[in-house]
């Protein structure tokens, strides 16, 4: 009896030592030239974490993305996984809360030891996990966090392990300028922006910069303040400067009235805005007639005839019985962006994946061609939607 007790004690302690040694080796592996160490640890699966808003205030964003991420993982696994390894998806609910997002990121990196994190859907919850991603050298991709602070810290330095799939807000100004110059072929434009919102001011500034760089002239630059209801006098002023195009970054509550009043005053030229216009309410406010010949920018449209987008829309509606929205598309793309990077890195080491994502060039995704700039902001295609009799109709896709 005594002997066997001693033996079991010996066995147990040697086991413990073994585990400790294993840990040590593993840590050494990841921190130095990683690749082999962690892939040996990962076995035949690649663990990817999803830190999403599955409940709480913005649960609809998170669950939309989770659905599409499930679909993408299923497809990749059915085709043999990444480099022959199946993806193991670990989903954590951050309850639409920044503090919960931080603890979810800690759980994913320390307990589950994921290779990369997809999420969160909102900028706030994404920013909350940036520090963890940087400390543990785990790449994270926010599908729909549009605030610059997700990838660039307050000190102006790029967060090395943080990426995003959606374009940032000011990029829409660039898209609008490209669309106006190349598709509508206008030479003069007026800008009428919401002076109370950083979103609108950022868009206006980037539109003006790029429109002028393309040889256009800004004939009027006016602003309003959110909650205004009377825009007629400023619109009359804009009209007298005879622009061929009016760019109106802002939110639908005011834009709806601006469009209506502009048309009443006889401003018939194309009007354009960004995703702030995207609400059914705008049709009630402006009226379907007034909205004709207006354009908005979105990340994705289910009517996009492009092959990849079409295939996605089909397989998504087959699985879930509804048309995909932008959040679905961005969640789906985040998985493929990561897959591409892991394949090119040839390894599941965080730093190598990060470098591979940084080197992503014109990757074909559902939401268009995707490249990364030095601030980890995407340079990518955007979809232009036109309002036709109150309905959103796919107009064109503007490539970067």
């Amino acid at each position, binding site marked *: 009896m005594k002997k066997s007790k001693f033996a079991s004690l010996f066995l147990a302690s040697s086991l413990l030592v073994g585990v400790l040694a294993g840990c040590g080796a593993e840590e050494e592996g990841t921190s130095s030239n990683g690749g082999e160490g962690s892939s040996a640890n990962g076995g035949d699966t690649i663990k990817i974490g999803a830190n999403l808003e599955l409940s709480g205030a913005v649960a609809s964003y998170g669950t939309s993305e989770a659905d599409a991420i499930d679909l993408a993982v299923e497809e990749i696994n059915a085709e043999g996984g990444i480099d022959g390894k199946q993806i193991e998806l670990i989903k954590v609910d951050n309850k639409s809360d920044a503090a919960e997002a931080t603890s979810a990121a800690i759980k994913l990196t320390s307990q589950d030891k994921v290779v990369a994190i997809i999420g969160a859907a909102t900028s706030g919850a994404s920013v909350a996990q940036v520090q963890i991603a940087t400390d543990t050298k785990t790449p994270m991709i926010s599908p729909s966090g549009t605030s610059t602070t997700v990838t660039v810290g307050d000190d102006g330095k790029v967060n090395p392990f943080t990426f995003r799939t959606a374009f940032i807000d000011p990029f829409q100004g660039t898209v609008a300028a490209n669309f106006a110059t190349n598709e509508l072929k206008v030479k003069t434009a007026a800008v009428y922006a919401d*002076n109370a919102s950083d979103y609108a001011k950022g868009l206006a500034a980037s539109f003006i910069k790029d429109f002028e760089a393309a040889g256009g002239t800004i004939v009027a630059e*006016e*602003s*309003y*303040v959110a*909650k205004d*209801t*009377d825009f*007629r*006098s*400023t619109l*009359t*002023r804009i*009209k*007298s400067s005879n622009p061929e195009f009016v760019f109106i970054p802002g939110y639908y*509550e005011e834009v*709806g*009235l601006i469009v*209506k009043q502009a*048309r*009443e*005053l*006889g401003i018939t030229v194309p009007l354009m805005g960004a995703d702030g216009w995207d609400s059914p*309410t705008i049709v*009630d*406010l402006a*009226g379907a*007639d*007034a909205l004709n010949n207006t354009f908005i920018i979105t990340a994705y449209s289910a009517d996009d005839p492009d092959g990849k987008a079409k295939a996605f829309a089909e397989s998504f509606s087959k699985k879930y019985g509804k048309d995909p929205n932008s959040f679905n598309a961005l969640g789906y793309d985040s998985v493929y962006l990561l897959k591409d990077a892991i394949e090119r890195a040839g390894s599941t080491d965080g730093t190598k994946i990060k470098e591979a994502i940084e080197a992503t060039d014109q990757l074909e995704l559902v939401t268009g061609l995707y490249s990364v700039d030095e601030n980890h902001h995407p340079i990518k295609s955007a979809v232009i939607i036109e309002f036709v009799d109150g309905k959103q109709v796919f107009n064109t896709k503007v490539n970067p």
Partner: protein
Amino acid sequence: MEWLQQLINGISLGSIYALIALGYTMVYGIIKLINFAHGDVFMVGSFIGFYSITVFGLGFFPALILSMAACALFGVIIERIAYKRLRNATRIAALITAIGVSLLIEYGVIYIRGAQPEAYPNVFSNRSFEFLGAQISIQSILILSVSVVLMILLQFIVHKTKTGKAMRAVSHDTEAAKLMGINVDNTISATFAIGSALAGAAGVIFGVYYTKIDPLMGVIPGVKAFVAAVLGGIGIIPGAMVGGLVLGVVETIVSALGFSLWRDAAAFVILILILIFRPSGIFGKNTREKV
């Protein structure tokens, strides 16, 4: 013809201010109370018009009349419940009560239906015609004519009817009017009813002209109309009309010159200037100050 267009814009805006300012000025004229809840009566009128068009399927004119009637009743209820018992209280007490009533109405409406805005349905065709290079919509013509008709009607009531005579008498000297056998309480109620009905009409017109209505929509027009009333001379009915129109045109000119962000500031600069240089307003007579 940019200037003609701007003038039309300014007069349309100004006529809405004028309709609201009339209620302020009438109530002030009769009980020396600045009824800060007046802007919210305007809001309630707008919502009554909205629901009678969308839910009951009424046309513009029935909705306008229904809204005016409901607001008249609403104004009388406010007066009877909140202000009547304060008639002999200090003016500051009544003023603070008015602010309280204003907040009660705003947040009461939010409590009942939520804070989300509504879009007024199109009751008139969106057609517009060109006149000397300016685009004039059918809407703005109708709105202007409704405002003008209401103002003429008000002048008629005040100067040609018995109620109007009683109102003028009470406004001139409450005690003497009482001695002459005028029912002061009823006259004050009538004043509130007429003023609130005009605010209700302004609410419906505002909804048709500007489309978006929400429970806090009365705050800024209410304050602007107050400025208009002071500008014309508070307590003087033609003063409120002129004050409203002047304010609307001035605001439009400020925007037209490219200072759209200064538009609201312009209204309050006018208020300050008027209070410094001519406290009794454009139409006011300088009276001895009672100490």
